[in-house]
């Protein structure tokens, strides 16, 4: 069995995850990356997307983060996210509604507009949430 590292996912509202895990996969801004125990110190920002990790019992788990930062150290990974949800906590109806809203916006706004960027970001978040919620686990 592989050595474990501590995964902590923190949002301004609460601790979402704090457990020992084997591996963490996270969506960095420059591409997805994986962290195992003994990783060299590493700091990066995150895109909205999914975090996959395997807990001490070897069970795969998944959660959604809306972007943030990660600090990886040899024995722990800290993820600072503005919001993070476990798969079972995702409100899929809300995500679908958000997706629809964002798409409508995108059809109306001009590309160089600030609102366009916001709508695009909202759309990505909604798509990621839906994808995670629909994955069977």
């Amino acid at each position: 069995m592989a050595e474990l590292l501590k995964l902590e996912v923190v949002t301004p509202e609460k601790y979402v995850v704090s457990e020992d895990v084997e591996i963490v996969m996270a969506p960095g801004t420059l591409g997805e990356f994986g962290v195992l125990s003994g990783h060299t110190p590493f700091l990066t920002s995150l895109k909205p997307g999914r975090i996959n990790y395997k807990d001490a019992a070897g069970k795969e788990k998944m959660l959604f983060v809306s972007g943030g930062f990660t600090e990886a150290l040899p024995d722990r990974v800290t993820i600072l996210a503005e919001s993070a949800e476990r798969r079972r906590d995702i409100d899929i109806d809300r995500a679908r509604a958000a997706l629809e809203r964002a798409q409508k916006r995108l059809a109306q706004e001009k590309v160089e507009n600030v609102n366009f960027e916001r709508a695009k970001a909202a759309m990505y978040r909604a798509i990621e949430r839906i994808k995670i919620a629909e994955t069977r686990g």
Partner: protein
Amino acid sequence: MATLKEVQSKITSVKKTKQITKAMNMVATSRLRGAQTTMEAFRPYAEKFSEVLGNIADKAGDDASPLLTPRDEVNRINIVLMTSDRGLCGGFNVNLIDAAEKLMDDKSAQGFDVSFTNFGKKGRDWCRNNKFQITRQYLNVVGGKFSFNVASTSGQELIDGFLDGSFDEVYVIFANFQGMASQPPVVKQLLPIPVIETAGAEADDDKPYMAEHIIEPSPDELLNEMLPKNVFIQIYNALLETSTSEHAARMKAMDNATKACNDMIQNLTLAYNKARQAAITMELMDIIGGAEALKG
């Protein structure tokens, strides 16, 4: 001398007031507990964040972000004033507004243009009555349930205003929750961001040697992403502190009011008993006087 009936109705009215203040005290107590829990839940995030920020701050260049650079010429200043929406919380709002007035006088004396961003109705009303310029107001935030979103929306607006030159400096005034008895107002500079304490500044002798972080994308870019978030965190923290303080202040104020009601009831009961006794004595005197007269 008040008549029996007058005293009686006064007592009833004070008793009613006492019921209200007691209920408000209880509501404030339970809200305070909620606010404290939220504050505690936020602490790990804030701590980790400043740790990470400190880690990259000393690796990035000094002029990495316009948010860090003080303006050569300061003309316009924005004050974010946090107060409660509702009264009946003792000197809570007065203290905050006093602090705002002081800061404002100070800045106006230097010839700066001052405008306000208001969280809370009490501060808003004060600005309005004095005809100060209000750039933005957020009501029903302090003291209630609010999410991080409020902090990031308002923070983003302040940052936008700072970047496009609407303000050259931004300050925030909030109540610092130091415990049940003291919630002093605090003035903090929000923008430009004051010097960040770097992780290297502390003596990390007890920590084992650690290799330098690999930072992705570059330290400058990462810092640029983190700094606005840092502003949001400051605002969120200030909001949490102010909300908690508001409830604590109201609890105290209502507790005092309940005690004052008790004193009043006691005094009035005394007065009532005295008046009753006086009436009885009068009647007795009458009867005795009548009996004496009959004896002749």
